[in-house]
């Protein structure tokens, strides 16, 4: 999993609150969510993003697969339940949330397409962040190393990684098209965690974006 830490001199409001080590991808996700909305964070880990969202006045809920993560979240007072993105989203009614977030979890699901479809059913919007497997470093490693890439941000060997469905930014855009999702916003971050130029072409993002965050909505 990626762990990009924002620098202390971040200008964003949450960083100014002393959350200096808040993950930049979390800040980006949080900025895509309207304050006061209802949010479901699928794969919420230790609840760091949920906590950030609650600071911003969001009514947040979480699902997390690992028992340790869940119990840590609940002890922090977060509304988190133990569950599996692949099997448990079906239990949520349509339009239950304003946003459903999948932060750095898409590549670890068994059926990413089904998960994305459920997210768009349960929420009016979906926010998805994921590591871009089309990044130039990864392409180089496969091309010249001939092996599955192991990088600072993806540190596990192929036989140990929980990530079973890597995709590129281009792949993800195609999936959005397939499930009828409308792309409202997209941000790609470079290796230093800074957003890439907004007017850059998609191929540029796909090559130089180390991770991406998409805000989607259901096509009417």
């Amino acid at each position, binding site marked *: 999993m990626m762990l990009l830490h924002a620098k202390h001199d971040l200008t964003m409001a949450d960083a100014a609150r002393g959350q200096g080590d808040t993950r930049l991808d979390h800040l980006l996700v949080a900025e895509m969510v309207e304050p006061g909305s209802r949010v479901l964070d699928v794969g919420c880990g230790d609840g760091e993003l949920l906590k950030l969202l609650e600071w911003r006045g969001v009514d947040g809920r979480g699902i997390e697969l690992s*028992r340790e993560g*869940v119990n840590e*979240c*609940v002890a*922090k007072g977060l509304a*988190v*339940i*133990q569950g599996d993105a692949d099997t448990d989203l079906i239990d*949520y009614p349509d339009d239950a949330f304003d946003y459903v977030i999948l932060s750095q979890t898409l590549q670890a699901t068994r059926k990413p397409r089904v998960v994305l479809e459920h997210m768009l059913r349960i929420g009016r919007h979906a926010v998805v962040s994921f590591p871009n497997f089309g990044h130039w470093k990864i392409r180089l490693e496969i091309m010249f190393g001939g092996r599955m890439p192991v990088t600072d941000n993806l540190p596990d060997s192929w036989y140990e990684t929980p990530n079973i469905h890597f995709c590129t930014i281009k792949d993800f855009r195609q999936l959005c098209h397939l499930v009828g999702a409308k792309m409202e916003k997209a941000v790609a971050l470079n290796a230093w965690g800074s957003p890439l130029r907004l007017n850059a072409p998609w191929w540029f993002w796909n090559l130089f974006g180390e991770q991406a965050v998409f805000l989607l909505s259901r096509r009417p």
Partner: protein
Amino acid sequence: MSETQLTANRDLSDRVSESEHPRSPVAQFGADRPLRLDAGIELSPFQIAYQTYGNLNKDRSNAVLICHALTGDQHAANVHPLTGKPGWWEIMIGPGQPIDTDRYFVICANVLGGCMGTTGPASINPKTGTSWGLEFPVITIRDMVRAQAMLIDHLGIDMLFAVAGGSMGGMQVLQWAATYPDRVFAALPVACATRHSAQNIAFHEVGRQAVMADPEWRHGRYQVEGTNPRRGLAVARMGAHITYLSDAALHRKFGRKFQDRTNPTFSFDADFEVESYLRHQGSSFVERFDANSYLYLTRAMDYFDLASDYDGVLASAFKGTKTRFCVTSFTSDWLFPTSESRDIVHALNAGGARVSFAEIVTDKGHDAFLLDEPEFHAIVRGFLQSAGAARGLAPSRD
């Protein structure tokens, strides 16, 4: 009369007096305030015995109602008047404990049908002047909760900050949240289910048959006839107690160890430690519990099926609720397994409720909710603190 018999009879008279004149505060509900039961009968007059800990704040917004389990009572965090033992949830309730009495006003009432001062089959039927026995109407979990709501009214509290309880107590928590959603800010149902399973009804039936097979039971008239179905109730308790533990916990605690001997006696004496332990559980239980109460309370649990009040759709029970829920279960609990807590969570999610759910890893079985489980306690503490902040309660001192 032998000395043991004398002691036993003194214990019995203590217990009988506790059911009528308990060493607890009592709320009396006269003819003007009858309790309408699910069985279609009005119970009147009746009384509720309860205990409180901590202080009610001036907004009356910090009250926590504790619902006790089948064989529990109102003595959750004080020395028990009959056994002299600490309260059954002292590990949870007290100054600085997860249910912090420096912060919350904690109420625990003996349930309707109980035998520690709230009206039940051991109480005197005003019409006959003798104990109710089987004349007492069959009650339900909802009846218990209705009675508790009357107590809460009596204490001048509109909305409870939290309702918490395990097992049968958890059923009451769920019933509270479903029946009085506007009176429960936060709910903590622990190790419970929205309906009693066939297996659990079966265990209860074995217990009831053990009581009724005791010749001293006298069709429930033992108090009038001066007998006491000690053995039957003890056997019921022994059987039930096994279901509160787990194979792993029993093995860890007792294994196949012999009790005060090195070899089997080739008799039906309590050779094994586990036998001796169960016999002790049985005999100490009958000193503080009424056999008919046991029948009525197990029946109330059997009848519990929350969805049936909502056309079989559990989610309807919680639709649009503003109550915050924290559901917890224990991995080795086979009486109320995690799958049943998951059903609660699914229904709450479908109803759009704010719900947390945690499963605690332990080998201590169903009884784990009463024991030292630090992770469970951290969850209760964290959940209540966050709910308290949302309710505008002053934070605990840490």
